């Protein structure tokens, strides 16, 4: 039976459990002389039966799916001839994959030997048995669970509290999964980065001023030995992000103030959705806008003033990135400024303060934590943004603070390191993980700084 079918049957069984549980509670209530003598409402007994039916069975289904492939693998391999079992780990994997792809019908038998054909037969048999057993067991567990729950229905059973508890644990599990996933990503990046640091010293990476990740793939290949100093990338990232923020923060914040404090309702109703459209434009569109329109414009403008401007410049990428980020800053700041209670505005205006004094001295300080949060989110966007930089700022890792030159960023280098056919254990590709780790720490640092700023300067209103 298909997993999706099993799942649907499980949902149906849970629903039946609900109905039976509810009915049972009515019956029990009639026995003792009225619904009010039961601890909980009928629906709570129903929910309890449904959860008891659904949850253990669902857990079993998930575990079954997680381990099915491995168990079947072991069983099939155990039946293979001894000399095949002696094969190297990766060769055995290949051999087994051929069996599976033949057994599932995605390849034909021409390349297979006798052993594989019989193993494929064995595999098919195991899989169909497993499917049947899975369906039967899951349904059995569901029915037993529901019966147990229905059995327990009595006036003293605190079904309401019971259901509440189960819901609490379901919510806890979900948040735990989110935390666990994050941890998993960080750890996997960390371990790959550690492998990178086995071949390239950490100090070279952190303090090196030269980035040219060219490694000889084969020993006899003629190539530069490669240098992995990430300082130019960091400087390029910060430079472009800074240009972007210089555009986005003042424009975004001030338009937010205008929208929330001065603009008429009609103007707001038209402007906000328009700006949200701006936020929805794919970054690749911004990218070619930057590369084809803004960058040439800046070069011509610069040259007419006698400056040397590279045809791909940090300024062009940063400008367009800033435009891209404006809606973020605006939307978040607008919400925050609107959340400042009107009593603050009245208090200030009632003192004879002007609108702009009220904004500067009361509204902005009160809204500061949220505004910093919004800006931080925007900075993270800017640092993580890749497409615009690839198209408009170039790939050359130059160590410069001049926004008119071509620079590159950490994310762009991660892309270029991993695009195309690469060996996944050369320092060149592993460098991407080291860069990822650094990126992670830079954002973490930003978060901590922002948290500190918010704590120090927040003016809390109720």
């Amino acid at each position: 039976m298909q997993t999706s079918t099993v799942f649907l049957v499980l949902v149906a069984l849970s629903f039946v459990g609900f109905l039976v549980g509810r009915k049972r509670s009515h019956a029990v209530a009639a026995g003792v002389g009225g619904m009010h003598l039961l601890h909980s409402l009928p629906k709570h007994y129903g929910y309890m039966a449904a959860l008891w039916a659904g949850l253990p069975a669902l857990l079993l289904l998930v575990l079954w799916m997680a381990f099915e492939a491995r168990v079947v693998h072991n069983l099939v391999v155990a039946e293979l001839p001894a000399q095949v079992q002696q094969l190297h780990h990766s060769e055995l994997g290949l051999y087994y994959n051929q069996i599976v792809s033949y057994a599932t019908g995605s390849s034909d038998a021409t390349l297979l030997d006798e052993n594989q054909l019989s193993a494929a037969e064995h595999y098919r048999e195991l899989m169909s048995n497993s499917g049947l057993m899975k369906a039967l067991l899951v349904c059995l567990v569901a029915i037993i669970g529901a019966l147990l729950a229905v059995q327990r229905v009595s006036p003293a059973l605190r079904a309401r509290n019971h259901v509440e508890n189960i819901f609490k644990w379901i919510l806890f599990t979900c948040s735990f999964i989110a935390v666990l996933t994050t941890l998993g990503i960080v750890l996997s990046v960390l371990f790959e980065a550690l492998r990178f640091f086995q071949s390239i010293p950490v100090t070279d990476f952190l303090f090196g001023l030269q980035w040219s990740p060219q490694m000889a793939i084969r020993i006899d290949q003629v190539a530069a030995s490669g240098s992995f100093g990430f300082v130019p990338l960091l400087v390029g990232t910060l430079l472009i992000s800074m240009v972007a923020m210089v555009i986005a923060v003042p424009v975004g914040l001030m338009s937010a103030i205008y929208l929330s404090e001065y603009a008429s309702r009609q103007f707001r109703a038209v402007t906000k959705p328009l700006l949200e459209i701006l936020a929805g434009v794919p970054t690749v569109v911004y990218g070619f806008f930057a590369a084809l329109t803004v960058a040439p414009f800046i070069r011509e403008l610069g040259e007419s003033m006698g400056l040397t401007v590279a045809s791909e410049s940090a300024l062009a990428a940063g400008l367009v990135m800033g435009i891209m980020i404006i809606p973020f800053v605006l939307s978040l700041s607008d919400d925050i400024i609107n959340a400042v209670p009107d009593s603050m505005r009245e208090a200030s205006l009632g003192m004879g303060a002007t609108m702009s004094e009220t904004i500067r001295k009361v509204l902005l300080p009160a809204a500061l934590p949220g505004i910093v949060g919004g800006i931080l989110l925007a900075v993270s966007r800017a640092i993580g943004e890749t497409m615009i930089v690839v198209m408009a700022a170039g790939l050359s890792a130059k160590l410069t603070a001049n926004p008119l030159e071509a620079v590159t960023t950490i994310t762009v280098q991660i892309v270029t390191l991993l695009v195309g056919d690469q060996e996944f254990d050369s320092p060149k590709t592993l460098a991407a993980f080291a860069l990822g780790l650094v990126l992670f720490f830079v954002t973490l640092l930003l978060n901590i700084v922002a948290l500190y700023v918010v704590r120090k300067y927040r003016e809390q209103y109720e």
Partner: protein
Amino acid sequence: MNSIAVTADGIGEAGASSPEAGLDIHDHSDVKDYETVGEPFVEDPKMSARNVNVYYADKQAIMDVSLDIGKNEVIAMIGPSGCGKSTFLRTLNRMNDIIPICRVEGNINLEDQDIYRGDQDTVLLRARVGMVFQKPNPFPKSIYENVAYGPRIHGLAHSKAELDEIVEKSLRRASLFDEVKDALDKPGTGLSGGQQQRLCIARAIAVSPEVILMDEPCSALDPIATARIEELIDELKERYTIAIVTHSMQQAEVGDTKEVFTMPKHELTENYITGRFG
């Protein structure tokens, strides 16, 4: 000190509180079933309102109110919720300007100057006519900064020492100084409700207004804090003219005014005071 109390009959649509008025108060906007009682007019008033009508979009909130506020007088306005007391108070320092749909007709003068004339600067007006709101609304700043806010904005102090002096004087007048003198740098929002409201009063008097408007200043406070504010209002009338909106009969009854309470001239007023509309 002469104080008067004006009831709902004097302000706004008393028809709303009349049992005969039915459900839709606006049907009765042309029925003159109200009249002003108490002493609406005085000689040489601080502020005077003549034939004031206020509309929110096309709803009329105040009908044809004429009233004087005498110098160093506490005028208390009572009436059922929604009858327009707060609206009237807010027209006195043009706080209603903030509300785009609000429209004011008639004359309101502050010492013979029409405050709704074209070249009236609301900044200057609100410095002369300060306001204390229903819910204590200190800024999320320190106690000192709260009181110093107004003087700073209006450039009243030319040195730190002068500002310190203004802050201390204002806090003393609001009888809050002794409680907070060691905690001037603590946030104003950390005070108790009654202290917060006195802080708001201190903030309002820091710019030396001539008139202080108070919109149910005690409605969010417990009886003890209320008693302190009432005492304070009684002291403040030495220096300031005060207009107060209240739901408390005791507050309306400050000083020697008993007229409305002891012998209401209008049936509606009597009904309201004796609690038939409560």
